């Protein structure tokens, strides 16, 4: 996701590490982390994904005053066909049929509190595949480059999203 300013903060790293069930003190204990090779708190390997928090237009976060696809009085707050995301123009992951197929990270260095990153996104390849279980699968790739405040490349991420014709119950 494209983000102009992604400040990496210690409390966010702590919450993220808790959420993935990783008790490693290098993610939350500064005194411990200083005594390790990392030299201080670092972020866990998949933390860059949390840059979504800093994307003002991120489609998978409810926004004040805007319709949201999740349930309230009704099962969805928007038209069900829109919630299904079956349309060709529905962004990957926006609809209920959007799934994450692949994720790849290349680490040029590891993230630490105090880093202020920016992320730029470019589209990669798109392709289709037939699946007995889920009908026509449409894949699309995006490449996200995370750079620090000096413009140095920190992480290169490649994401592949897929939209399916039918719900998949593995």
């Amino acid at each position: 996701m494209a983000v102009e300013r992604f400040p990496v903060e210690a409390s966010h790293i702590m919450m993220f590490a808790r959420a993935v069930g990783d008790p490693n003190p290098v993610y939350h204990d500064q005194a411990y982390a200083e005594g390790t090779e990392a030299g201080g708190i670092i972020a866990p390997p998949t933390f860059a994904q949390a840059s979504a928090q800093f994307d003002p237009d991120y489609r998978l976060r409810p926004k004040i005053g805007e319709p949201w696809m999740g349930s309230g009085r009704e099962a969805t707050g928007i038209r069900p066909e829109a919630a299904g995301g079956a349309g060709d123009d529905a962004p990957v992951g926006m609809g209920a049929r959007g799934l994450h197929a692949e994720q790849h990270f290349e680490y040029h260095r590891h993230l630490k509190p105090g880093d202020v990153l920016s992320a730029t996104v470019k589209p990669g390849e798109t392709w289709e595949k037939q699946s007995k279980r889920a009908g026509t699968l449409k894949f699309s790739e995006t490449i996200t480059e995370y750079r620090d405040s000096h413009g140095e490349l920190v992480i290169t991420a490649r994401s592949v999203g897929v939209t399916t014709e039918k719900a998949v119950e593995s």
Partner: protein
Amino acid sequence: MALSAASIEVGDTHTEVLVEDLKRTQLVQYAGASGDYNPVHTDEKFVTEVAGYPTVFAHGMLTMGMTGKLITNYVGDARLTNYGVRFVNQVWPGDTLTGTAEVTAIRTEDGQHLVDLTITTVNQDDVPVLTGTATARIDP
């Protein structure tokens, strides 16, 4: 502790249970931390009545994050250079996930010792939910 080339061999494996009986609350926790609030992961009414799934399911990135713990526990902190996965099956509340890293190559690139790993995470029925690869810097 980081790995050293002298102490490992191709074919070595490292296995850990990543989560036992995955709770829906952990999906909520991951949604909050990551910022991915797609209701398919947290909203039972939406996911069953609108999206057509039997219940909520885990973010792929939660499985990748939990599997990351296995890799960093094996290779050491701040050692990863590459980590990539495919999400091959969905992860559901109640699942118990076990991850395995297997050494596929020990090599040197520009004087730096590296280990290549294949990564597989399976559920309680031994069905793979995530497959991938990782590369890390190691000591000589």
